[in-house]
């Protein structure tokens, strides 16, 4: 089973809808330990991405992902903007010219994306950032592929790991991003970026997994 170009477009569209739905939720999470804008930022970005959909109708996966990245870069701002932009730009580099992705291709793209976020933000595991959702998710995907799991299952295990990583941010004291200014007071709250990252991979499981 592979992931088609159309499925990728579906994923992006579905995620834009998920963001719209979770805008207030993400902003509320950010209000507790940040500056109350993560939902609005992501929403502004993915609304702009939706506006690009028509011009992407016949493009390859690399172009689609790079366009998403460039659009996020110039519309989101804040920390989330460059990080998610880098995520999609890096994934787009690895998928340049491709019209469909094998599980291995998908892994390679996700790995580049996550490394891009690490490189850009210099956060480590347990700094209470999106890295805490992305890295376990990437590892879970890797293992699933090695275990010979189906694409659907691999994507589900990936999303499940992201969810656990997101939840594991709750007790952490933030060391990166705006929440770090709070010191000990940041403990007890779920990281908004880890949450939007989990939602991205959950949407992937839902949309790409049935492809």
């Amino acid at each position: 089973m592979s992931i088609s170009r159309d499925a990728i477009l579906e994923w992006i569209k579905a995620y834009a809808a998920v963001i719209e739905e979770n805008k207030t939720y993400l902003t509320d999470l950010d209000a507790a330990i940040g500056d109350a804008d993560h939902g609005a930022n992501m929403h502004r970005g993915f609304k702009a991405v939706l506006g690009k959909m028509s011009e992407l109708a016949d493009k390859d996966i690399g172009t689609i992902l790079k366009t998403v990245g460039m659009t996020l870069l110039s519309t989101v701002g804040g920390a989330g903007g460059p990080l998610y932009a880098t995520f999609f730009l890096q994934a787009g580099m690895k998928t340049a010219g491709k019209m469909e992705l094998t599980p291995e291709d998908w892994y390679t793209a996700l790995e580049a994306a996550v490394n891009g976020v690490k490189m850009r933000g210099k956060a480590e595991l347990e700094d209470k950032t999106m890295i805490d959702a992305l890295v376990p998710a990437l590892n879970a995907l890797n293992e699933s592929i090695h275990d010979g799991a189906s694409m659907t299952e691999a994507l589900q295990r990936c999303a499940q790991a992201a969810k656990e990583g997101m939840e594991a941010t709750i007790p952490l004291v933030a060391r990166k991003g705006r929440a770090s200014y709070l010191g000990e007071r940041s403990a007890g709250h779920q990281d908004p970026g880890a949450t939007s990252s989990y939602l991205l991979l959950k949407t992937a499981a839902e949309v790409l997994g049935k492809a």
Partner: protein
Amino acid sequence: MKKLINDPERVVQEELEGIALAHPDLVKVHFNPNYIVRADAPIKGKVGIISGGGSGHEPMHGGFVGLGMLDAACPGAVFTSPTPDQMLEATKAVSGGAGVLHIVKNYTGDVMNFEMAADLAKAEGIEVESVVIDDDVAVKDSLYTAGRRGVGSTVLAEKLCGAAAEEGRSLKEVADVCRKVKDWGRSMGMALTSCAVPHVGKPTFDLPEDEMEIGIGIHGEPGRKRMKIKPADEIVEMLMEPIISDIPYKEGDEVILFVNGMGGTPLIELYIVYRKAYEIATKHGLKVVRNLIGPYITSLEMAGTSITMLKVDEDMIKLWDAPVKTAGLRWGI
């Protein structure tokens, strides 16, 4: 929380339209990407200075564009750092051949976006130096964290660097002034009330009628601790003590004392704060040679204050006194 706005999504757009109508003698406003640039930019042979950050801190930065201060400002959405394309275009618009200084406040988003913009500008052949201001002593400094936030010193850095650039100093020299401000300036703030981000519509945090937040940032982030409200003099002590003990200021050092209003605090209270801050500085043997009192780096309608102290040498005093002509700060011209 009530606001004089039309549409939360259009706050920055309409503010920029207002600025364009109000100050055509000082600035041009470019839309899409958004930036505010000196009416006479680029100035041949002068180092260009740009800054930027989320909106909601007015007059910073847009109100500081003009002769003797910034060449351009990039406003992001409210409390959200602007994007690299804005910064790139602004950098190009102010580049007069002598290079461009990026004055960046230390927030992950601002730093990353400015980094990407600087890379893009360099790729287009523009020499760029970036200085990241991180003066907020409310935040513990550490190699393993994002470090301290950039707050009040930014305003002072923009003034001093603007004067240095106006004098014809080189990019490295202007950046050196900025690094001095970064090294010699410290700030700390507090809030009596929260602010409300327009698209959220409710206060970012709830603060009971008898409590305050100490060590607040400028984005409605909660502070380092919450406590019962105290008399102004005690509050000022709580802000001044960490500032003074952070840099080993020496007796006899000359300082600029900047008492900033967070947006919703009236001037009458800022003078009460200044009175005590001055007394404390003097008691520590510091000489307050210049001051600035008013709402210059704000957090929407938040009630509260921040204090910035910047040690200065003779050159910095000269740069402070140099003429400045912007909507938000003006003297000597």
